[in-house]
């Protein structure tokens, strides 16, 4: 079926999302959304294998609860990208806001530039589902806070300001999953729930696999996996399980 082009200019998010869902039910799978500017919840809860291309700034909670398919944003995305997502891949050719990947239990977020605060909070694995977030730029505070599973990869490819690669309170309360950060990380930034461990050959293979896919998604930007991999990574994993278990009544 031909791709369906929707001009979203001035369109309320409810109408836009309803239109997408109606067209999915009719059998459309490929959508090109023009003139998007801040419409929320795009793709919310879609279970089918869709391909959604977004021109303009994607609004809050892009791809929330989605299970399959791909979303490509050719601009920036606002807060909450991939909220509680189950399996979709979202590629953002710009920056993304705060609380991205919240509670995500499957799928991928590939962000070209910086990401905001609180990335990957409460992210988790479920059976064979492993969520992966890769960020080309830097990240704000609370990166991987309360993370329970999955993989966060922070690349710092651009380093175009004086901020450190990642903010304060890194991985606070983390009790599952793995964080890889390209370059050094000041231990001051993370708490005692996590520790730095050696990057093994197995890790390198895994990183190469994910970063190759990332480079392919942004191939217009001339990213080279060998070059990216030539710098060392810092690997963070939790060193305790359920660090706050004691404070619960049972």
């Amino acid at each position, binding site marked *: 079926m031909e791709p369906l082009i929707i001009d979203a200019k001035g369109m309320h*998010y409810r109408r836009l999302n309803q239109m997408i869902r109606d067209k999915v039910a009719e059998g459309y799978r490929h959508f090109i959304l023009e003139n998007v*500017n*801040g419409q*929320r919840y795009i793709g919310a809860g879609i279970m089918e294998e869709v391909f959604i291309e977004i021109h*303009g*700034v994607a*609004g*809050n909670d892009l791809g929330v609860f989605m299970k399959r398919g791909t979303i490509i944003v050719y601009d*920036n995305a*606002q*807060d909450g990208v991939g909220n509680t997502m189950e399996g979709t891949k979202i590629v953002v050719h710009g*920056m993304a*806001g*705060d609380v991205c990947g919240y509670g995500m239990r499957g799928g991928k977020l590939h962000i070209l530039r*910086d990401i*905001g*605060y*609180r990335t990957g909070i409460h992210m988790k694995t479920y059976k064979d589902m492993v969520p992966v977030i890769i960020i080309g730029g830097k990240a*704000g*505070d*609370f990166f991987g806070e309360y993370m329970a599973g999955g993989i966060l990869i922070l690349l710092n490819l651009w380093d175009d300001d004086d*901020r450190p690669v990642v903010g*304060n*309170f890194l991985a606070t309360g983390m009790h599952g999953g793995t964080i890889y950060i390209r370059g050094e990380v000041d231990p*001051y930034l993370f708490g005692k729930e996590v520790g730095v461990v050696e990057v093994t050959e197995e890790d390198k293979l895994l990183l190469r696999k994910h970063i190759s896919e990332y480079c392919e998604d942004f191939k217009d930007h001339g990213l080279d996996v060998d070059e990216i991999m030539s710098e060392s990574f810092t690997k963070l994993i939790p060193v305790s399980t359920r660090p706050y278990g004691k404070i619960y009544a049972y």
Partner: protein
Amino acid sequence: MMVLTTRDREISGCGLAGIISRKKILIPGETIIRSISHMIERGNGLGAGYAGYGIYPQFADAYAFHVMYDDELARKETEEYIRKHFHVIHYEEIPTKKTKNIQESPLLWRYFLKPIEPPDVESFVEEDFVMKAVMDINDKIKGAYVFSSGKNMGAFKGVGEPDEIGEFYRIEEYQAYLWTAHTRFPTNTPGWWGGAHPFTLLDWAVVHNGEISSYGTNKRYLEMFGYKCTLRTDTEVVAYLIDLLVRRHKLPLRIAAYALASPFWKDIDRLPERQRRLFTAIRMVYGAALLNGPFAILVSWNGGLMGLNDRIKLRPFVAAVKDDKVYMASEESAIREVCPSPDRVWAPKAGDPVIALFEDFDGGEQFREYQV
């Protein structure tokens, strides 16, 4: 069970937007209405407002008082007070028009005033005199509230959606070189006309998304300096704190921002000696001015615009630059709605103020080195 709310709408937060032309090129009111109304989802119709700078060039040297009255008695009493303390250069009803949803409103008047200097005062400070007048009217006259009191600026606010409040106050008929705007989703305090943002004093205007849980501490601190919080909304303290710290205590604006959103002790401890002493002093002296709780605020005045987040970024805040204009908003889309291709868009670091000054603003050392 089905839960009914007054409006079929998701719970959200407030929204804010600001635009400044650093070269003082006038920006039509329609632009700021469009920007804030793009985030209409962030409010719930229980409050919206605008502040415009450069809107009264014909009375640029007079203090422009925007006053809301519950009734004619409040107006009579207030005007008696005003005539006793000010030369009235001009006064009139604020032009409004009924809209679909705003059929009734308080009485809304504006006065262009010059203080009558009392003969028996040794060191007369005009701004302190105006500040006291605002506090007196708000506190002592029942049903009278000063919405704004600065020179060549004004605040327009009320209960309604931002597009309706814009239409009601005929904002599209004004031009300003600096606008801020707000759409409100009141959570802890009443949605009434006086509780809409901006909150102002003199030419300071503040719009805010979040909640100031230190309100009680801040309020009591301000009372020691003659400020009276009468508007039943947490944001009021921010406007008065800025006035106290920057105008009266002459703190550099950036330092004042660090008093409101102070770095954590654990971060201060790691700073080089000089900075450590500075930030320690700020926290010690201005502990009661620290704002606790989530916030993104815009502070505007006749020198420029400042945006500031709480130190752990509990509310959204985006900034952009295009030529001489600087934009700040809760969502990038609100900026892109009126500026489709900015030169630069960024998410400012929490607790670090973004400051954009007018090119001709000479605020001296207090402001100079901190241009965007």
